[in-house]
């Protein structure tokens, strides 16, 4: 069984709470707040106005740039305002507020549960449809999928890698999606392969999901060129570069994109969204999110329309447990503790995790004892202790020389540190500044080049 070669850690997977819970549809909210920046890149530009009537699946904002994605309404009703709202971390984001009236869908969306197998579209048509449907990577980064499916000139995709790893502890939404919608995912993979003009796909699934491996393998036997790769349990196997290494044994160079080794990586949830968009004309208006935790009354996987307040989703799961010390948006490794739950669900919200008080505190920080555990754990082969110290001392140029930009924020270093040092906090803060410096330098170089002309 394969896994990636460098680093990695083994956190307890804790998936038992919500694993095998059937996907339940979460009810419609009274008011939906649909953020316009649900993806990496420029926020979308609203195309509706106050007072407009919208239907489910109607385009309400179009992509605001090359790396940007369309936003569709997840509900039907009247637009009451376009204003800023705060996310769970108190940051401002522009959003469209809709008062929900009924549940009226756009006519061209196929709402039946039939599995549509045939797809005779041209690659370009498929990619257009994906772009129109506003599909972004649902694994967490929310990178617009249509951009990923258009390799830059001179580079060619050879293999599609489908991420069914779900290496984050606690989260089970992708697992459940594979179990319930395996067939659709298979068709989605074939459509994506068609769009990329390739005939090989590898589905990576960690071995703690034996039923998903069995189901997908069974389905893969019927399809050409699709292979299921059971993988050893190791975090962060769901990271793009780690998954490529684990699945096809190729290493992506520092600073390079997966396409440089001929790979395109997509999450199973993204693939499912592609299926729905291409075959059923349904834009990305909902996603499955896991609500879980030791003390949650009804942990499970909920299908949530974008715009639904998280409070409503929590209500469905039995409310906030009394012993909650921290609510984390996403998984425990890469997710962030939330400041409030007054936030709508959107493309990025993959899960809600309620940690009890006694588990939610960081350990007492002690001095670095130079044990090197973080270096062993880093899946990118970096030296976290060094980078974090450099960040503390504001040595940003040195950080850049030590490849801080390769850091994937996985948190393995901090997880493994016996002194509980806040390594990732410092590295991430330094990385932000180094990134800013690099961009400033590039902008200056560009300006200089233009001045020369």
């Amino acid at each position, binding site marked *: 069984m394969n896994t990636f070669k460098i680093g990695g850690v083994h956190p307890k997977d804790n998936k038992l709470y919500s694993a095998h819970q059937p996907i339940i549809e979460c009810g419609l909210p009274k008011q939906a707040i649909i953020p316009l920046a649900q993806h990496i890149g420029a926020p979308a530009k609203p195309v509706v106005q106050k007072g407009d009537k919208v239907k489910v699946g109607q385009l309400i904002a179009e992509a605001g740039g090359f790396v940007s994605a369309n936003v569709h309404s997840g509900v039907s009703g009247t637009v009451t305002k376009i204003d800023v709202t705060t996310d769970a*971390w*108190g940051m401002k984001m522009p959003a469209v507020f809709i008062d929900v009236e009924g549940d009226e869908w756009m006519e061209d969306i196929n709402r039946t549960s039939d599995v549509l197998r045939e797809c005779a579209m041209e690659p370009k048509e498929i990619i257009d449809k994906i772009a129109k449907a506003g599909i972004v990577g649902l694994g967490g980064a929310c990178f617009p999928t249509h951009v990923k499916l258009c390799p830059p000139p001179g580079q060619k995709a050879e293999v599609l890698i489908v991420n069914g790893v779900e290496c984050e502890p606690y989260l089970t939404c992708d697992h459940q999606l594979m179990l319930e919608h395996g067939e659709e995912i298979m068709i989605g993979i074939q459509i994506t392969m068609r769009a990329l003009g390739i005939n090989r796909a590898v589905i990576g699934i960690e071995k703690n999901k034996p039923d998903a491996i069995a189901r997908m393998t069974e389905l893969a036997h019927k399809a050409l060129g699709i292979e299921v790769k059971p993988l050893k349990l190791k975090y962060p196997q769901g990271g793009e570069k780690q998954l490529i290494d684990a699945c096809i044994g190729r290493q992506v160079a520092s600073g390079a994109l997966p396409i440089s080794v001929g790979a395109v990586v997509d999450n199973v949830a993204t693939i499912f969204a592609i299926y729905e968009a291409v075959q059923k004309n349904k834009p990305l208006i909902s996603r499955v999110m896991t609500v879980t935790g030791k003390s949650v009354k009804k942990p499970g996987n909920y299908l949530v329309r974008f715009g639904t307040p998280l409070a409503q989703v929590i209500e469905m799961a039995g409310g906030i447990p009394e012993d909650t010390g921290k609510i984390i948006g996403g998984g425990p490794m890469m997710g*962030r503790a939330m*400041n*409030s739950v007054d936030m709508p669900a959107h493309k990025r919200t993959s899960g809600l995790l309620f940690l009890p008080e006694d588990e939610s505190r960081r350990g007492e920080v002690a001095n670095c004892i130079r044990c090197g555990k973080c270096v062993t754990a880093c899946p990118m082969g970096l030296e976290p202790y060094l980078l974090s110290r450099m960040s503390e001392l504001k040595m940003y140029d040195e950080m850049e020389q030590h490849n801080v930009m390769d850091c994937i924020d996985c948190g393995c270093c901090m997880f493994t540190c016996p002194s509980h040092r806040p390594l990732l906090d410092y590295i991430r803060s330094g990385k932000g500044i180094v990134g800013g410096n690099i961009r400033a330098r590039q902008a200056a170089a560009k300006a200089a080049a233009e001045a020369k002309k």
Partner: protein
Amino acid sequence: MDLIIISLLVLGVTGLVAAILLFFIAQKFKVEEDPRIDEVQAVLPGANCGGCGFAGCRALAEACTKASSLDGLLCPVGGAPVMEKVGAILGMAAPAGEPKVAVIRCNGTCEARPKTSEYNGTRSCAIMSAMYVGESGCAYGCLGCGDCVEACAFGALKMNPETGLPEVDENLCTSCGKCVKACPRHIIELRKKGENNQRMVVKCLNQDKGPAAKKVCANACIGCGLCAKVCPQEAITVANNVAYIDFDKCVVCRECEPQCPTGALWGMGFPERLSKTAAAPAQETEAVSTDKDEKFDSAIAAKIQAIKTPRAVFPACLPYNNK
């Protein structure tokens, strides 16, 4: 005996050769340096704080010596007197600089801005501000981890545990600007010290609309514009729901101060302020309500009164408890 003589000879001759060699090399590679650089450096404070924008005092001295005029070159620590001395050495007129001081533009005390969450990460404002809005709900105010205190090379900043805010010791502040750069929320501003160390400051940067700002902090500027209306110098502008006082225009008449319904606008350096308002509150509010603005009703006056009475030491800077 021979051994000693041989050793002496060998070492002596080697030393002589090396000395001659070094003499010629020194002649050949001699760096011509303006002797005035040393003189200028001697005048500068020698703190090497970097507040002038150069790598240290030596670098500023070099820059001054090379420059054709002293415009734009200023040692913020030494201020005008030092620059005059530098000017005297270099035979140039020193620009008239006005002494400045760091001002903390946030008055979100623990009492006014209760904690809504507890931050458990690294105690650093830069990291905290990248993570989320902060322990209070205010996205613009002080985070209270003391990055500015750490940045200050002169010990002029310290955290006040009662308010949870940094305080500037104006006698020690050299206006080097390091804290300004260190603050991720850009709260700290270098303002003119003003006559008698007195100046008017809007101690808030909250750009939210009035009710939203007020919800997170009782001391927030709500952008009502009452202060701008009364300012005889038109020094106050309200943009993005927050007032700003142009310190070049302000003459410190303090007309604006009683207008502020939330107490975001402060006169700094007036020690008698509290006692005066406490002694004759009725008179002042009445005068204001007849002279300045009809809108200024008694309810607001009462609020001002409440704000201006000295506050009790608030014990609630304790960590947020979610129980």
